[in-house]
């Protein structure tokens, strides 16, 4: 999406800026409404502690969703993220506990592996001409199996104090995962909006053939996007493993749906070419807030599922409505 905010470079008032943002991040309105509702129903919701709490909870999915934004903008998809979380988590735990690795190794190696798996996904799907759905369905299964194999079917626990900082540490009052998450959102936003790489992601997602004819090395960018996603999935794996103080075998199962949902709720088109990472931030927060709010309210499990599903649909509908009113 073109970014009127930055590119116009004319002075815009704060109010205007807000409205531009509002427009760009469609779901914002719905998000605010949901928050206000929860705030009314259960005052503790707006407690700063709770707010940090929610963002921290969201960060595990959120970090991956940032990477998924790149891939979906390209018109792709990645189902293997959950398996990458588990696999890199186990590797990190392994280096921490079993293979006597240093803090450095148990962070760097999982990140490299994550990036490597992402690269593989991108490489097979572009060079083999396969839809990433199939390729990542395959790697999803492969790396879930690999996780169990490496761990010999048992979780690996007992991380070092320093490693635990990644998921459980605080910088001042702010949990470290929150910093990682928001940091990756900001970096991704800058990449998408200000760099050639980012612009080409939009171009390829918008019309691959035209992008190719314009001289863009489409394959290279696609592979890069998958690599970024793999890397961020590994980062999420580190956060999770560190938070749980344990490399879990079932970690990340079903994450792909939550992650893709965050991106799509945030307004990025499944067809590619449209959207952005701020939307993803709101999308991920919305999902997190719904579940947090319902927990605070003590809504019964069955009803939680029903309410959650309904809020998601209503929220995106509201976004659409708003747009309709505006253009009318």
């Amino acid at each position, binding site marked *: 999406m*073109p970014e009127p905010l930055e590119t*116009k470079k004319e002075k815009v008032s704060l109010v205007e800026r807000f409205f531009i943002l509002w427009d760009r991040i469609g779901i914002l309105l719905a998000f605010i409404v949901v928050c206000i509702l929860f705030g009314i129903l259960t005052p503790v919701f707006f407690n700063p502690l709770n707010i940090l709490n929610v963002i921290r909870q969201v960060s595990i999915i959120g970090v991956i969703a940032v990477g998924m934004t790149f891939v979906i903008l390209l018109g792709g998809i990645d189902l293997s993220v959950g398996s990458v979380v588990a696999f890199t988590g186990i590797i990190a735990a392994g280096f921490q506990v079993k293979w006597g690795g240093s803090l450095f190794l148990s962070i760097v190696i999982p990140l490299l592996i994550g990036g490597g798996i992402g690269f593989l996904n991108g490489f097979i799907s572009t060079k083999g001409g396969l839809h990433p759905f199939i390729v990542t369905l395959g790697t999803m299964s492969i790396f879930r199996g690999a996780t169990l194999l490496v761990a010999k079917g048992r979780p690996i626990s007992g991380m070092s104090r320093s490693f635990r900082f990644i998921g459980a540490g605080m910088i001042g009052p702010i949990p470290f995962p929150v910093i990682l998450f928001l940091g990756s959102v900001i970096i991704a936003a800058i990449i998408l909006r200000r760099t050639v790489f980012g*612009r080409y992601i939009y171009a390829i997602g918008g*019309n691959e053939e*035209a992008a*190719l004819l*314009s*001289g863009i090395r489409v394959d290279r960018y696609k592979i890069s996007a998958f690599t970024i996603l793999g890397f961020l999935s590994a980062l999420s794996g580190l956060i999770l493993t560190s938070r749980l103080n344990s490399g879990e075998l079932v970690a990340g199962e079903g994450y792909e749906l939550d992650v893709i949902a965050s991106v799509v709720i945030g307004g990025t088109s499944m067809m590619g070419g*449209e959207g952005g990472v701020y939307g993803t931030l709101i999308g991920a927060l919305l999902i997190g807030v719904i579940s947090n709010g319902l927990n605070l309210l003590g809504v019964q499990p069955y009803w939680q599922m029903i309410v959650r599903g309904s809020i998601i649909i209503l929220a995106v509908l509201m976004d659409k409505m708003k747009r309709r009113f505006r253009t009318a």
Partner: protein
Amino acid sequence: MEEVILEFDKLTKKFPGVVALDEVSFDIFRGEVHALVGENGAGKSTLIKIVTGVYQKTSGEVFYQGKSINFRSPHDALQNGIAAIYQEFNLIPALTVAENIFMGHHFVRGKFVDWKKMEEEARKLLDFLEVDIDVNSRVRDLGVAKKQVIEIAKALSHNAKVLIMDEPTAALAQKEIKTLFRIIRFLKESGVTIIYISHRLEEVYEICDRVTVLRDGKFVATKPVKELKVEELIRMMVGREVGERFPRVSHTIGEEVLRVEGLTRPGVLENINISLHQREILGIAGMVGSGRTELLRAIYGVDPWEEGKIFIRGEEVKITSPPEAISLGIALLPEERKTQGLILLLSVLDNLGLPILPNIANAGFIDEDRLKQIGEEMVEAMNIKTPSLYQRVMYLSGGNQQKVVLGKWFARKCDIYLFDEPTRGIDVGAKVEIYQLMNRLVSEGAAIIMVSSELPEILAMSDRILVMREGKIAGEVNREEANQELILNLALGGKNHYARTP
């Protein structure tokens, strides 16, 4: 007294930031061929899309056969006997020609599609249009011209009372246009009303009874064609005097920059030899499907080819992808703007900047000011009508979109430009500007290959003309000796030019 079939009364259509139609009032008689002309972005396509229910009007009225209408979808319009050929193709690439022609009103026998009948009828229609297209081939395997013919067949298949044609000839060559006109006359005889939009004013004079001029969304005039001189018509459209239609400046041809030797792609291209020089415009003429597009794509590295050699500035090169071609200083302007030329979702600025981004970036970061400056220059130079640089190109009029595709490559300096139907859908005034830009490129040392189905353009702008037929170079004509008959003769080869070697 003529009977009015369609009447527009203060018809207004507003898009965010644009008034596409501003209180337009005029009427159309039953059984006439009514031309609708105007500059790019004047509101022609918008007007017809309101008639067919694609867009909803903002205010005003449309009367059809005396009744006020407000169709909600093309379905309603078709039900009421109004069919249209839209400016952009609306075909389903993966389906066959026959199915595309009868899309929306398949023949059925009982509950099932009657394939046989459909193929038969499709074949009949195509025969009527005098083209030889296999009704079972898929639309995606066809060139632009054939797609255009399919669109025409599709519109005819409805037996409509009102047939709207938005630039039906933009992709057609002489021969097909002749057939189309014959059909239009035939339809007119049988009482069909035709609204005809075109930027080729000769056609308006040849086929139309009355002409309505729009400018900037406003109604200018409706006149019988006979009472209107071309100069006057152009002045009404553009609002000013347009100088020479083909402003050619002569330039001294330099050394050879591109040589193609024996390029062959079985069934498509056969033993092509080309030599292109600095400061030269090489025109390529030919009939539909003669392989001109394929030739440009082969040079650009999009499609693979089997035999032959390509030399750039004397050195043999192997180009296997567009990025490689670009790094060698070659640019291609593809023939289908919507699917190959533009990223519709992106803004005018982003589209214009696409090929040049790496050149104006520091460490990967785009120099936004520089980009904006280039964008403004291009919009100015090409006279692109857009509310802002940040408008998505999908909301521009067809002609303005084409200008963006052109601007994309004008913005980036290349040595060799391959232009495939560069002025498709562009209005008279803007064409002149584009020719001037081409002149400037050439005078700065570039070389251009221009494929075009518009013979006057080829004749006027080329230094040399190659004529293709059935994938081969049928002949080369010098600028001095070139004329319509000679080129047509070469292109037709004296026999049925559609016959393709299997």
